[in-house]
């Protein structure tokens, strides 16, 4: 029975999946049938996770469809230690090798948790036991579907979606300001009257300004006020992949049912639909069905719908049927307010001066602001500080700001030093040795030694074909002057800062 059912599933899967995938993952599973339960066993947690994420949904459908005796419980678990000892021992290394070969074709290093050795240590058993808790169980029946899948739950006969909403993004922690208040108000309006006037709500604007945050906030609010609401958030790429999968597995009807049975559908970054004809066709029909059913749609994009290249005109016009709102980059006050709010959430006391310091330097988007704050928080945690001042922030942001500076070159150093002393670059690298030239030349050589990895002969050559010993001499002179002359030291520090060192 077990062999029959699983073999039938294998036959279908081998036809549906690319040979590489089938041979790498499906054929490797051991099967065992007892009572009315089919147990599939993966050799390690990595395989278990992979199969669970990529194939379990389809396997459960097949088991449900192909089981002749009605209800069959499907279980995906790890091979136990005894399984390994009794039957897998001899094939274990072959299996792992196949797995590694697939991943290593690229040259990658891979650790898949299971050990290669045949002996099963106590430690290995413990790992297996801990992972056993993660075993995935599916109850499947042809007559009465009860599949608990990754993405769909059958509840009371209806389709219940896994929402994929991030609970961290709420209206409470969204900081409104002039640049985003229109989008904020529109989102609030949607939660008051979903599926009516603002349908679809189309939020657009440059990346990293809070479009996704607002989307999740709508979802979280609707879920809070109606926990049984069917809400789905997906990235446009996921929609595309789901559609491909549905076509490959000949389950387009399920795909349609899945996407059309939601109360709220939120799709992020719809600009990626551009040029994908099949996706646009399918989404067009989904869109119409949802609108007819007065189900709410929220879309985001980095640009106005009419400006999306390769997007069909019928979608462009539909995206504008409801309300299109733009989010602009945050102004200084809003950036400061965002930093204060985020710092509070991280239990860090950020004074106004420090917040202003960050906000003045990071202007483009909120993600970058968050990145800057993360750098500060990470350093504060390592240094065990919860009070932050400007000097600390300045130091913590050094890396982030440096990552946006171009790599330092000798040319750049020569240009900056020449400009600073009112010279031309040809003067700086000339053979002349007048004192007004020698001092800047020494500084430029020393900066090149300190801030680049060029060899000393290379630096010497870049300064008019000089020897490496000249660079060392210049370096010694500059070191002496920095120690003895405060003004000179300040100039050197200033130049180093301009260059980005």
């Amino acid at each position, binding site marked *: 029975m077990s062999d029959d059912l699983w073999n039938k599933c294998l036959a279908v899967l081998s036809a549906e999946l690319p040979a590489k995938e089938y041979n790498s993952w499906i054929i490797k599973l051991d099967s065992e049938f007892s009572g009315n339960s089919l147990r599939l066993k993966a050799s390690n947690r990595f395989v278990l996770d992979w199969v669970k994420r990529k194939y379990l949904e389809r396997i459960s459908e097949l088991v449900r469809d192909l089981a002749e005796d009605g209800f069959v419980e499907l279980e995906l678990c790890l091979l136990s230690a005894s399984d390994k000892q009794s039957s897998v021992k001899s094939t274990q290394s072959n299996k792992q090798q196949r797995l*590694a070969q697939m991943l290593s074709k690229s040259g990658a290093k891979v650790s*898949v948790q299971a050990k290669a050795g045949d002996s099963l240590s106590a430690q290995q058993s413990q790992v297996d036991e801990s992972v056993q808790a993660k075993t995935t169980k599916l109850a499947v029946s042809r007559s009465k579907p009860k599949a608990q899948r990754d993405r769909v739950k059958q509840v009371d006969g209806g389709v219940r979606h896994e929402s994929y909403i991030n609970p961290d993004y709420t209206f409470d922690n969204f900081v409104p300001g002039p640049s985003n208040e229109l989008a904020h108000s529109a989102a609030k309006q949607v939660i008051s009257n979903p599926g009516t006037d603002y349908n679809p709500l189309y939020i657009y604007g440059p990346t990293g300004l809070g479009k996704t945050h607002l989307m999740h906030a709508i979802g979280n609010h609707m879920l809070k006020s109606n926990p049984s609401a069917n809400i789905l958030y997906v990235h446009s790429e996921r929609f595309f992949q789901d559609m491909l999968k549905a076509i490959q597995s000949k389950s387009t009807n399920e795909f349609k049912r899945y996407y059309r049975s939601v109360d709220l559908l939120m799709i992020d970054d719809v600009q990626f639909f551009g040029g994908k004809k099949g996706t646009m066709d399918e989404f067009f029909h989904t869109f119409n069905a949802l609108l007819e059913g007065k189900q709410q749609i929220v879309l985001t994009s980095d640009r106005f719908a009419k400006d999306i290249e390769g997007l069909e005109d019928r979608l462009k016009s539909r995206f504008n049927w409801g309300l299109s709102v733009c989010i602009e980059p945050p102004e200084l006050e809003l950036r400061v307010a965002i930093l204060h709010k985020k710092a509070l959430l991280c239990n860090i006391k950020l004074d106004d001066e420090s917040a202003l310091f960050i906000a003045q330097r990071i202007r483009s988007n909120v993600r970058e602001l968050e990145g800057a704050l993360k750098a500060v928080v990470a350093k504060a945690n390592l240094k065990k500080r919860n009070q932050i001042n400007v000097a600390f922030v300045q130091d913590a942001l050094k890396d982030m700001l440096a990552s946006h500076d171009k790599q330092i070159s000798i040319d750049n150093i020569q240009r900056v030093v020449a400009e600073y002393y009112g010279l031309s670059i040809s003067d700086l690298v000339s053979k002349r040795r007048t004192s007004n030239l020698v001092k800047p030349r020494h500084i430029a050589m020393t900066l090149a030694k300190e801030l680049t*990895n060029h060899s000393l002969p290379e630096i010497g050559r870049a300064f008019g074909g000089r020897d490496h010993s000249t660079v060392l001499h210049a370096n010694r002179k500059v070191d002496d002057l920095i120690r003895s002359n405060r003004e000179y030291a300040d100039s050197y520090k200033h130049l180093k800062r301009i260059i980005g060192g």
Partner: protein
Amino acid sequence: MGKITSPPGWQQLPLDIGLAKQPSFDNYIAGRNRLHVLQLQAWCAGTSEPVILLLGSRGEGVSHLLQSCYHVLEQGQQPVVYLSLAHDSLEPEQLVELAVFDYLCLDDLQAVMGDPVWERELFHLFNLVRAQNSRLLLGGKEALADMPLNLPDLKSRLSWGLTLVLQPLSDQQKVSALQTHASERGLELSHDLALYILHRSGRSLGELMVVLDQLDQASMRTKRRLTLSFVRQEMGW
């Protein structure tokens, strides 16, 4: 570029800084990057920001540190992958498949920036990693400003995580590093001779290690000790 400890069948390949030893946090000479090492150790322990962008010039140890993270996690039996986008022949479309790993170390970001397909796939991977609460460590050997990154969505996501930029070692630290590595190879390298090498070779740690490799092999071949005349003759300085 890759190496695998389990199962067999993988070959040991040279690291970008030419170390014969397996890269680890212990044999990384941190210099001014001590806090960065702590951040990366916290990343491995799952206690830091989940996405880290580690940048540094060639030879400053970006690959060394990414591979150190890989080895720590691999020894802890965590599902982890290390991949060089410059050396490993992965198709961009396969990138999103890596999201099944809990820990991803992707090296040589600079090799694929500017390619719209790679940028788009990295962006999708980034979204998946965040959605699945996985941890992503990206390594690059150029400043972000030098990478021809076109996709703004990816750009903003790269700046979302924690950015660490490796600082070069001081000359004194490089001299010590040369001596330490020479000693590990059974070579005696005096302070003055190390300084001599530093003053004539490219001065990144990677370039210095290449010189040391060359001298090591020449020393074995000719059965001579490292002296000034030997180094000058061998390196043509």
